[in-house]
C-alpha cells in the first residue's frame, strides 16, 4: 500500500514535471530569456572586467565570488561533518591493519603508481594555475590531487599516506581555501571597494589587470590546496577503523 502510494506520487510528479518541461522555452534558442538578460555582459566584458579568458572562471571567482566562498565553505563543512561523525585520528599516524583493496598489489603496480603520482600532481597544478585561461581551476585541480592521493592510498596503504601527508599539514591547510578567500575579500574592503572586490579602487588603473590576475591565481591556489587536503582528510577518516590510531612514536 505504502509502496503503491509512493509509486503513484513519483509517477504523478514525473508527469507534472514533463508537463512543465513542455511549457518551457525551447532549448538552445538564442532568444530565450536566459540568453538575453544577464549573460551578454559576462560574455562580452569578462575579459576586460574579470581578466579571465575562461568566462566560467571569471564568473566563479569574480562576478559570483561569494558563491564560491560558500562553495569552499561547504566542502570544508563536509570535512568537519565527516570528522564529527567518524572522528579523527590522534596526532601521529594511522596504523595499517586495514587492507583497503582486496587485490594484492604487485611490484608493477607499485612502481607505476609511484611514478605516475608526481605527474598527476604536476598536472593538477597546471589545472589550478591555468584555470583562468582554459577549462579547469582550483577546485578541479584540488580534486585531481585528492584523486592521486587516493590512488596512492589504495596501493601503499593508509599508514604510508598518513606519513606523507601528516595531520599537522592537513590541519593547517584544510581551511586554506576559506582563509584565502576571506583575506582576499577583506583586502577588497581595505583596497577601497566592497568585500571580494579584486580591482581595488585605491590602486591605479594601470595596475589593476595584473592585480586581478594575481588575486585570482591566489584564490585558485587556495581553493586547490584546501580542496585537496579536505578530500584527503575525508578519505582518511572514512578508511580509518575505529581505534586504529598509533601513538606518536
Amino acid at each position, binding site marked *: 500500500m505504502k509502496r503503491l502510494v509512493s509509486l503513484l506520487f513519483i509517477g504523478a510528479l514525473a508527469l507534472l514535471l514533463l508537463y512543465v518541461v513542455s511549457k518551457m522555452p525551447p532549448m538552445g534558442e538564442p532568444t530565450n530569456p536566459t540568453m538575453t538578460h544577464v549573460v551578454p555582459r559576462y560574455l562580452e566584458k569578462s575579459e576586460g572586467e574579470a581578466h579571465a579568458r575562461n568566462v566560467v572562471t571569471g564568473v566563479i571567482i569574480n562576478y559570483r565570488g561569494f558563491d564560491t566562498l560558500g562553495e569552499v565553505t561547504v566542502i570544508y563543512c563536509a570535512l568537519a561533518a565527516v570528522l564529527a561523525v567518524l572522528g579523527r585520528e590522534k596526532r601521529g599516524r594511522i596504523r595499517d591493519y586495514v587492507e583497503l583493496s582486496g587485490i594484492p598489489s604487485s611490484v608493477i603496480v607499485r612502481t607505476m603508481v609511484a611514478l605516475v603520482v608526481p605527474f598527476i600532481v604536476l598536472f593538477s597544478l597546471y*589545472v589550478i594555475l591555468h584555470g583562468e585561461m582554459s577549462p*579547469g581551476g582550483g577546485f*578541479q585541480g584540488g580534486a585531481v590531487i585528492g*584523486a592521486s592521493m*587516493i590512488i596512492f592510498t589504495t596501493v601503499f596503504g593508509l599508514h604510508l599516506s598518513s606519513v606523507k601527508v601528516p595531520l599537522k599539514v592537513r590541519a593547517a591547510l584544510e581551511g586554506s581555501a576559506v582563509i584565502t578567500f576571506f583575506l582576499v575579500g577583506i583586502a577588497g574592503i581595505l583596497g577601497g571597494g566592497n568585500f571580494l572586490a579584486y580591482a581595488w579602487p585605491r590602486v591605479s588603473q594601470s595596475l589593476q589587470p595584473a592585480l586581478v590576475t594575481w588575486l585570482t591565481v591566489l584564490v585558485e591556489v587556495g581553493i586547490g590546496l584546501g580542496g585537496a587536503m579536505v578530500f584527503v582528510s575525508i*578519505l582518511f577518516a572514512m578508511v580509518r577503523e575505529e581505534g586504529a590510531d598509533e601513538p606518536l612514536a
Partner: protein
Amino acid sequence: MEPSFGALLNVLLLSLLLVTALLAVSSRDLLASVILFSAYSLLMALMWQRLQAPDLALTEAAVGAGITTVLFLVAIFRTRRREEE
C-alpha cells in the same frame, strides 16, 4: 531539433544515462551499483562536454566518477557488499 549526427549522439548518450541510472538503482549487488553509478557519472561528463561545458565535464570526471566513486567503494568495504533480503 533536426536529425543530425550530434543530435543522435545526444539521444544515445541520454538513453545510456537512463539505462545506467536504472541499472544502478535496481541492481542488488551494491558494488555493481556503484560501478554503474561511476559509469553514469562518466557518461554525464561526456554529455556535458557535448553541451559545451568542459569545466564541468572535467570536474564531474574527477569528482563524480573519481572521488565520489571511491567514497562509495570505501563505504561498501566498511559495510557490506550485498543488499539485505
